[in-house]
């Protein structure tokens, strides 16, 4: 066969090859994005809206205590260096995960808090999902409530956003599902009676009624991964942080709601 003939066959076969490939999930157009708040019942919305009924506020108040309590060999509190969180921490959570030069990769807000605790306060880092870490994170993130999520334009983040996107689109587990198959392709539909959200992490840490507690985005990702019957990553794994980063980038410009209430 001449090279030209072979080329013609390849060209002829292309449309069929394209048809057989899985169609990639399309990202949700920016103007069609919705917070999962919109999917909630009127009662749950009211619970989130009113600080006297929002159970996440209890964690925020605990966090305020942690913020001003000296810790570690330094004998310093967060407030001793950062002052009033209401101004120093305003919009900060909306920019996380952020690139950390020493780590050479993005850190999420919990990791950044723990880094300062170790490095600056000379204290033991808080355990993942511990009451103190969630409380302090909620207190810091509350200072971004109503602020738009950043666009994460730091060029050093770009490869990690790509990694997060790849993980979001990768099939995994015994059920062989990707995040995108539900949250890009089937949002708004009913998964055994639960509305499939678009998966915008606008309100973390959230008070999840199913948990009866406040919890992190990593805990929420873990829930879905277990639902796919895939092996969850260890808390703090770079895969989680890359996914958190991708999801925050995907939600860029949406308003922070911490502490959000979710079913």
């Amino acid at each position, binding site marked *: 066969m001449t090279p030209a003939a072979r080329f013609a066959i390849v060209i002829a076969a292309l449309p069929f090859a394209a048809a057989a490939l899985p169609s990639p999930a399309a990202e949700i157009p920016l103007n069609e994005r919705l917070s999962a708040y919109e999917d909630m019942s009127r009662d749950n919305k009211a619970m989130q809206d009113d600080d006297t009924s929002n159970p996440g506020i209890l964690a925020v108040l605990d966090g305020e205590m942690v913020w001003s309590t000296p810790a570690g060999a330094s004998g310093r509190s967060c407030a001793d260096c950062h002052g009033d969180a209401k101004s120093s921490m305003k919009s900060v959570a909306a920019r996380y995960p952020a690139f950390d030069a020493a780590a050479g990769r993005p850190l999420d807000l919990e990791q950044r808090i723990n880094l300062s605790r170790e490095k600056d306060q000379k204290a033991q880092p808080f355990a993942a999902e511990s009451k103190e870490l969630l409380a302090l994170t909620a207190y810091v993130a509350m200072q971004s409530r109503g602020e738009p999520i950043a666009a994460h334009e730091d060029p050093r983040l770009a490869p990690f956003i790509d990694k997060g996107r790849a993980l979001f689109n990768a*099939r995994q587990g015994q059920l062989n599902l990707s995040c995108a198959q539900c949250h890009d392709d089937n949002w708004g539909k009913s998964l055994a009676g639960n509305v499939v959200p678009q998966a915008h992490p606008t309100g973390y840490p959230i008070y999840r009624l199913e948990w009866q507690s406040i919890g992190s985005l990593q805990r929420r990702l873990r829930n879905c991964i277990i639902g796919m019957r895939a092996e969850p990553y260890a808390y703090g794994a770079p895969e989680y942080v890359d996914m958190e980063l991708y999801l925050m980038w995907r939600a860029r410009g949406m308003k922070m709601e911490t502490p959000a209430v979710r079913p």
Partner: protein
Amino acid sequence: MMRLAAVAAVLLAAPAMAQEALLPYEVVGEAIPKSLTGAPGDAERGRAVVVKRESTCLLCHSGPFPEQHFQGDLSPSLNGAGARWSEGELRLRLVDAARLNPATIMPSYYRIDGLTRVAQNYRGKPVLTAEQIEDVVAYLKTLKD
């Protein structure tokens, strides 16, 4: 030393032993015409498999299950499945729907290869057993409208 090596060999072999080999089947066109087990399934047992939460069917599908309060709508209703598809087509759609459409959200219920990061307790196991597949096929065949 010999004993250590023997123990190591057993340990290494353990996951493989836990992995039950799947029964072979033949795909003809868009169907698996023959029963995986060689025997017909039981429709009544099949209905019980479909509504059981661990089977995952009703996460996405709905159907004639008035007693089930939580049913999904990501995927077509199971009503009329027995009229839309032949027995062999139903079987392939359960066993490995991805063979018909690689982008489908429908898991392959009788497949253990080509999967990624499967949780330890599910590794090497299909979602449903061959018997369960046959029972579900027998049940879906009865859903004529």
